[in-house]
Every structure is written in structure tokens, then in C-alpha cells.
């Protein structure tokens, strides 16, 4: 299958194999495709053995930070006498990213199975799946699947007849990008404003409801059943580059590209082939100008950088950016970089929780200055002011929203400075009516 395009021969559809197949949403079909076999096996194992397999597989967090999943799980101390919690982060809100949405709307049972295994592995009886409120279709699919799983005895006090309790609950967010930050997500789940918490204490020590908690991304948890079914060695062997980057990764592709959509490739895939072959290249008559490869919070790449990139955790860093969430935003030669960056800054200004001064004031000022430059009213000094503001917004706040606003601003000025200067000297957008439309 594949959605919205049939899978490309260069793809390795593991998580996306059933995208586009509405039948895969039902428990009956999902079981006929091998669903819940991994959970059944897992519930018969020692939790520590599951953690060891996931550690060995090399699976790293797919939400953005890339932290080794098995290691994260091993921070949860067994037998401490406290309730443990698993939170599944389904608050997918990073501009350019729409992969978790597709996992949930096409294969909700894949996520439930991953959540149940993860919860059991970390000694938790309860997993909350925190889904952003705007995801109405994924919410409906997940709600229905959870009900089916309870009715079939897969979840509940006697999960799969093993006498072990595994509860999975869907929790609906209410519109706040910041709730994708793990400590803000926990505050939101507790019924609070979604302000991030200072770390330490880390969630594994004092997280949700003050209890030891692990937070994992949707895509990370959905990969776990495959690893238990086919083994750590198999997963680890799926790499086109370094052993530090194993497995498949979903990349969401959007912007000015011939075939936007989700594509799943083995880590280490050449980014050039990905952009020009798998995704169909630029729109007719256009050329690519810039790529933001890992969601809007990572630095912008020039095409020279992008075309030299291996698609893995280290490869993107070597070429001036980060893998992040895998949200690939492509801009072509018809776009004004100043305008796009100004609009991104406005996003961060809107989404700042306003807790830290550097972020609350910084995101607003950066937006105002960028919009002034875009409108033709900027000065050369503004560029220095932007870089100075960005420096003061990086590494100085409770969470990284502020840093995320600075990343496209700094990289944009460094790599596309001529476009900023043309706005300032020409006192208008050089793209004229086209980009101003």
C-alpha cells in the first residue's frame, strides 16, 4: 500500500505497510496480519528482557531528540513500590511533520500494541496516549481501536488472559504546540496549563502525577512490536550507514515538491535520491532552493548541503542541520526565504508558553523585526539585532522552544543573507507580486 502515494521501490515499508488500507483499522484484520502476537509474547517475558532487546536493537526516539529507547526504559527502576506511567506523545505539532497522524489513522492497533508492550516493560499498568485536539480523525480511530482492544480482553485487568493489568487511555489535547514538550505534556495531562517543567527531576524520577514516567513518541512505540517479532539483530541490521542509526524512519515531505506525503526508508538513505527520485523532485519548471529536513525547529539546509546528506542522526548534523522529527519542508525558487522565516517566527511567538522571558520577548521581537524587513522597512543593523537576539534565546530557557525559533532565523541569515540584504537595500520584497501574493 502506501498513502497518499503507492510505496516507492526504494522504500522499506514497515510502519507504513498498511497506510491507505481502511480495513487495517479493525481488530479482526489487524490480528490476521499478525497483530498482538508480540504483545502476547512480551507479557510472558521478564520486563527486563524486553528492555534488553530494545536496547540491543539500536532503536532511538523518533520524536526529535533521538535518545536510545531501551536506555530510556532502563531508567525506570523496577520494584520501587511506586506506580509507573507511560505517556505516548501524540501531540504531533512540529510544522512539516505528519507521520504520527498517519500511524494513528491507518494502524491504530499498531500503536496500542507498542504502548502495551512499552508499559509492561517499564513496570507501568497505565499508558496515556496524549493526542493533539486537532487530530479528529486519528482520535476517532484510536478511540474505536482502544474500545475494541478492551472488548477483546487485550487490555484491562487481565490483559490477554495473563492476569497482568495493562490500561491504555486516549487523552485529547486542546491546542498548544508546547504540549509536545514532554514535561509540558505531563502538566497538561494533569489538568494544568502546558508549561514545561524544570529538569531535574527527570520524568523517570518524578514525572506524571509525581511518579516515575517514560514518554515515547508514537513512531518509536509503533516500531517495538516489529522488533519483538523479528529480533534485535534484524532491526539493527537495517542501516545504510552507521550502527548508531538503525531501523526505518518515516519522513513527512511537504512544501514545493512534486509528491508530498510520508515515505519510510532505512536510515542512511541518500537525501539527494530521496528528494529527486522518491519524492518526485521539484514541481514542473521549478528548482529546489532550500530544505528544512527535521521539522521547523532545525536549521535550514542549502541544496548543496541537502544533496550531500545521509539520512541518519549523524548525517544531518554533518550537513548543518538535524534529523529531528523527520518533517522535510522543501522550498523552491518561487519562495521568499525572508517571508517564510518570518512566518515561522510568528508560529513560535504564538506558541510560546510565555514562562521564560527570553522566549516570550525574544520570539515576539524576532517576529516583528523579520516582518519589518519583509515589508521593506528593515535596516542592516536589524540583521545584527536578529543574530544577537537569537543568541540570547539559545540555551537559556526551561525548554527548547526559544532555541527552535532561533534555529531557522540564524541559519536563514547565514545561508540566505543576500535575500535579506536585497529586501533592505531595495526597500521591498525582490520576489515582487509573486511571493507577496
Amino acid at each position: 500500500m502506501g498513502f497518499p502515494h503507492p510505496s516507492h521501490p526504494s522504500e522499506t515499508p514497515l510502519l507504513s505497510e498498511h497506510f491507505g488500507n481502511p480495513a487495517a483499522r479493525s481488530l479482526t484484520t489487524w490480528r490476521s496480519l499478525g497483530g498482538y502476537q508480540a504483545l502476547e509474547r512480551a507479557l510472558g517475558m521478564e520486563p527486563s528482557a524486553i528492555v534488553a532487546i530494545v536496547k540491543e536493537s539500536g532503536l532511538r526516539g523518533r520524536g526529535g531528540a533521538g535518545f536510545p529507547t531501551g536506555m530510556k526504559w532502563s531508567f525506570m527502576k523496577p520494584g520501587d513500590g511506586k506506580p509507573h506511567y507511560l505517556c505516548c506523545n501524540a501531540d504531533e505539532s512540529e510544522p512539516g511533520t505528519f507521520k504520527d497522524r498517519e500511524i494513528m489513522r491507518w494502524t491504530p492497533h499498531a500503536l496500542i500494541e507498542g504502548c502495551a508492550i512499552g508499559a509492561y516493560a517499564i513496570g507501568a499498568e497505565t499508558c496515556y496516549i496524549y493526542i493533539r485536539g486537532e487530530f479528529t480523525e486519528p482520535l476517532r480511530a484510536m478511540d474505536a481501536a482502544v474500545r475494541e482492544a478492551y472488548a477483546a480482553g487485550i487490555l484491562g485487568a487481565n490483559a490477554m488472559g495473563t492476569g497482568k493489568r495493562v490500561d491504555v487511555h486516549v487523552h485529547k489535547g486542546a491546542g498548544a504546540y508546547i504540549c509536545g514538550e514532554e514535561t509540558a505534556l505531563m502538566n497538561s495531562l494533569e489538568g494544568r496549563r502546558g508549561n514545561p517543567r524544570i529538569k531535574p527531576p527527570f520524568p523517570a524520577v518524578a514525572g506524571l502525577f509525581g511518579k516515575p514516567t517514560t514518554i515515547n513518541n508514537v513512531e518509536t512505540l509503533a516500531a517495538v512490536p516489529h522488533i519483538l517479532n523479528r529480533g534485535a539483530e534484524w532491526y539493527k541490521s537495517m542501516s545504510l550507514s552507521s550502527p548508531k542509526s538503525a531501523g526505518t524512519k518515516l519522513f513527512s515531505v511537504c512544501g514545493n515538491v512534486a509528491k508530498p506525503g510520508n515515505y519510510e526508508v532505512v536510515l542512511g538513505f541518500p537525501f539527494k535520491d530521496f528528494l529527486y527520485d522518491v519524492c518526485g523532485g521539484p514541481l514542473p519548471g521549478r528548482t529546489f532552493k532550500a530544505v528544512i529536513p527535521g521539522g521547523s525547529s532545525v536549521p535550514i539546509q542549502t541544496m548543496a548541503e541537502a544533496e550531500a546528506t545521509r539520512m541518519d542522526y549523524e548525517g544531518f548534523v554533518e550537513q548543518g542541520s538535524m534529523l529531528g522529527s523527520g518533517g522535510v519542508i522543501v522550498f523552491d525558487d518561487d519562495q521568499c526565504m525572508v517571508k517564510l522565516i518570518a512566518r515561522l517566527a510568528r508560529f513560535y511567538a504564538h506558541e510560546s508558553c510565555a514562562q521564560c522571558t527570553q522566549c516570550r520577548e525574544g520570539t515576539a521581537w524576532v517576529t516583528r523585526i523579520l516582518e519589518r524587513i519583509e515589508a521593506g522597512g528593515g535596516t542592516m543593523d536589524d540583521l545584527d539585532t536578529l543574530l544577537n537576539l537569537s543568541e540570547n534565546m539559545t540555551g537559556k530557557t526551561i525548554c527548547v522552544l526559544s532555541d527552535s525559533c532561533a534555529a531557522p532565523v540564524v541559519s536563514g541569515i547565514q545561508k540566505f543573507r543576500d535575500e535579506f540584504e536585497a529586501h533592505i537595500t531595495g526597500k521591498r520584497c525582490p520576489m515582487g507580486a509573486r511571493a507577496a501574493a
Partner: protein
Amino acid sequence: MTVDEKGSAAAAERAPHGANGGHPHQEDYEPVFTGEVRRELDELLTRYPTRMAALLPALWMVQHERGWVSEAAMAEVAEVLRLTPAYVKGVVTFYTMYHQHPVGQHFIQVCTTSPCGACGAEEVVKAFLEHTGCGELGLTSPDGRYTVIEVECLGACGFATPVMVNDEFIESVTPARVPELLAELR
């Protein structure tokens, strides 16, 4: 006792029966949490170790029943969950999806963040403003049918431009499709 429990208990003592302004008992206010809705909330409370954790779901239930979250409704939620009205208002105002004022029958949200912006989202916004008669973002059309707002990233960037109409999510909207979409809502 955790901070949570202390807070909730103290809050219950301070405002035992909505005494502060008496919002839930205003004569023209019909409580939301009665009958089936109350049972639904009680079931929901079994999923969490604190009552406060049911706050976002309870506010969703209010909005589902009433179309928006009024101050009186916030006071009722506070009473039901043993919180203070001020606390509930603090949470309501943090999140963008709770309506603090009545909105049009069809609440239209158009994503205009950069990825969609690069694919012509601004033209989609213009088309909605023109064809609904709203004129300006955030205003409700004179017939009360429509409110149009710009929204930050809806998480469907590969389907530019995504638009939400109440709970319905519509992908790949172009300015040309707008009149036909609005006709379907009538």
C-alpha cells in the same frame, strides 16, 4: 499527601458550592454535568489518580454540549472537579481550542504556517473570508453561520492546505474548492 491533593482539598473548602459569585446557580444557567454527561465524567474519573486530570476532558464535554465555554460553565467545572473558578479559567485561556465566546455555526480554521504558506494557504483564507461574508478573521458572519480564523500548523502539511470545519478535517483545499465546500455545509 501530594501537592495536588492538598490543593484540591483546600479549593473545595474555599468554594464549597460555587459560593464565589454563584455562577453555577445563576437562574438562566443549565448545568452541563447532569444525567448521561455526569455519568460519562464519572467513568472518565476512574482513569486518573486525581480529579484535576479530568479538567481538559471535562472542558471538552462542556464545549461539545454548549458550543463554547462560558464563565458560568467554568465555575460549574470547578465545582465538579473541586478546583477554583480562577484556576479553571487559567487553564481554559492557555489552550487555543476552547471557545471563550460563542462562534459561528461552522467554525473554520485554515492552516497558514510556513509549509502551507508556501503552497498558497493565504489565498485559501481570502477565499473563505470572501465566500462566507465574514470579511475579517475572527469575526462571525452576519447570519451567524461562519467564523474563519487562521490556525497554526494542523499537522497535515503534506495535504496543503488543511482546513478544519468544527470537528471535520478537510485536506488539500484550494481557493477553487471553497465555494463547493461551503455549499456542502448548507
